[in-house]
């Protein structure tokens, strides 16, 4: 089995409202999987089903090849979007409690907590009460508690909200390191831009349905429309542009007369840019040639739009 988690046509209704409509996903092992979609798309419902907090009306969920069972809980670490800590409990005590709830023995939990507290440089917080901590500090504790029992699958729901950029980076590095060590990670967010640098695979949820999933690079390849950014150093740019416009599909263009710099974006009929390049190299000095790859956000918007047209 190469998938840590598989869902088969998972459907969940709340009264008349359908929260998930036949959502099928395959989440590969040892990867970071982005679960994307706007607020209300059904991400949190799906995650809660994986955590067995709620149960699907129909459909199946498989964890590591087995039908999802209560004992799988101990192999999953979940950092919910709505997260907090008991305000009046001490940090160490609370972390121990939550670790024990995940099935760790007290001694083992203590040992691992010591390690993590040292690692994230919060060793002296052990006896502090949670109400004395800042929001970012509390988030660090929550992160530790989530990963402490070394789960096979980690689920982060909007993990960076509440972190300042420095701490967000620390956490990002920790997530990447966990992945290196073989953990599979589901990363749920509605902020598409944070996906690009982390996720290997993505699934897009929109209005309770999965509208797109797969390897991010494949998706991007599939969604790129052969648009290139070109920069030329040329004497008579206006004339060249006119010629180009007859021959190619030029979208936007600027010509800086003083710098003799002509920039334009062009959409080619195929991914083969050889013709265009040889045409240009005879006439001008090419100083920029770049294929534009759509961002996750653009892909999302385009998919939603297309879907609207198809329906």
């Amino acid at each position: 089995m190469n998938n840590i988690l598989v869902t088969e046509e998972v459907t969940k209704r709340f009264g008349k409202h359908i929260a998930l409509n036949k959502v099928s996903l395959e989440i590969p092992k040892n990867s970071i999987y982005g679960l994307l979609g706007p607020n209300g798309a059904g991400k949190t419902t799906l995650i809660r089903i994986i955590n067995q907090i709620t149960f699907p009306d129909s459909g199946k969920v498989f964890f590591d090849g087995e039908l999802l069972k209560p004992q799988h809980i101990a192999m999953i670490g979940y950092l919910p979007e709505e997260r907090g800590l008991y305000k009046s409990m001490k940090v160490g005590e609370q972390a121990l409690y939550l670790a024990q709830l995940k099935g760790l023995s007290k001694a083992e939990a203590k040992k691992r907590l010591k390690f993590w507290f040292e690692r994230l440089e919060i060793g002296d917080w052990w006896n502090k009460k949670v109400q004395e901590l800042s929001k970012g500090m509390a988030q660090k504790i929550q992160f530790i508690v989530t990963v402490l029992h070394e789960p096979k699958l980690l689920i982060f729901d909007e993990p960076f909200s509440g972190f300042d950029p420095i701490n967000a980076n620390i956490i990002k590095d920790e997530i990447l390191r966990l992945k290196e060590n073989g953990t599979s990670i589901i990363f749920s967010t509605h902020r598409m831009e944070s996906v690009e640098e982390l996720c290997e695979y993505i699934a897009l949820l929109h209005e309770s349905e999965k509208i797109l999933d797969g390897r991010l690079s494949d998706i991007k390849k599939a969604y790129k429309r052969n648009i290139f950014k070109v920069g030329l150093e040329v004497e008579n740019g206006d004339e060249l542009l006119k010629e180009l416009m007859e021959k190619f599909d030029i979208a936007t263009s600027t010509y800086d007369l003083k710098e003799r710099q002509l920039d334009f974006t062009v959409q080619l009929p195929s991914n083969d840019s050889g013709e265009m390049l040889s045409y240009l190299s005879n006439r001008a000095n090419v100083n920029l040639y770049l294929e534009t790859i759509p961002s996750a956000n653009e892909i999302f918007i385009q998919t939603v739009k297309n879907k609207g047209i198809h329906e």
Partner: protein
Amino acid sequence: MNKLPLIIKREYLAKVRNKSFVVMTFLSPILMVGMVVLIAYLTKINDNEKRVIGLLNESDYFSTDFNPTESVSFVRFDDISLQAAKDSTERMGFYGLLHIPNENNLKMVTENSFFYTKDAPSTSVLDRIENIFQDRLRKRRLQELGVSTEEFATMDSAFELRTATFAGQTNLKGINEIKAFIGGGFGYLIMMFIIIYGGFVMRSVIEEKTSRIIEVIISSVKPFQLMLGKIIGTSLAGITQFVIWIISGVLLLFVAFSIFDIDPSALSNGPNTANMVVGMTPPVPTADQTMKLYAQELFQIPWVMLISFFIIYFILGYLIYSSIYAAIGAAVDNETDTQQFIFPIILPLMLAIYVGFFSVFSNPHGPIAVGFSLFPLTSPIVMLMRLPGGIGEGGVPIWQVVTSILLLIGTFIGIVWLAAKIYRVGILMYGKKPTYKELLRWLKY
């Protein structure tokens, strides 16, 4: 791996370490005992006040009847006018002036007697004086009828109708009330416990919601486990508090009474004893024996049975109500939204107490008592009020006890199931002020 003990332990410690809980635990007995001592002390001071009453007796009667007692003494005025007597009474700061005019016969004398006071007289003083007149009138009437005082004394023996059950068990008058009172005490305890600690459970659920830790927890344990752990942990904390209250309360009372030298019995029957001393009726000669009988009867109350049933009804009743409290806590976002849901819970509890005190006391086996002791939301309280009378013959029929417990268990399962469903959905709902309609819909999720 069972996580319930972990949850119970945390809930217990969280409660017991809570500052306001600690303060309440140790302050309440002190306050309560302080109140009792204060009341007892004030009563004592009040009793010690000796009232002086001026007596202007112009008649031939009552020359030997007004004798000083512990709290009242009389100062006789002779051969002065009523006005002069009134003036001097007021000048000397006496409590009042009793004027007995000179008339032809006793009847006229008593009818024309007057008691003058500065303010309205206290009823105990009035009772006392009236008693003296009554006795005198009675004696006079007896004389007219030709009965001597000695003969009257033999005649005026206390009589109480003795009662027995068909089974031949002797009953004591008022013992039903005493028994019901003991049962009522147990019932009241259950009600107080439910209201106080059910509220704690509810607030604890709300706290988990507002601090947003709930989803972290229920990704590790089942919501039902969390709810149950919370209820058990909180009730253990409650029992701890109750035990501390009872032990420290008793100790403090004992210490306080010995320091202030207050006789606790003076609290309950102070005014009565005063009246009895004055009354001519001699004290019932069998009082000691009656007391012994009462004591015997109290010993005969099946304490073991009563306490075991108390525990059964307590556990079932508390679990039912506190799971409703937990569901309410889960349904709302903050405590102010709980009001509309709390009232319907308190209603059956109050009903049980009132029905208990008004109906069960006077008729422990009447239809109302039976009905309410079967109805599951009131039975923990009402049945306990009936049970001191025993089970089986002469007491609560066995079928009623069995039915009541079975109904309670059935309700317990049903309500906990419903509450757990509402709880499971509610803890993950934020920002909505739920209506009853919405709660019903949650049951289908």
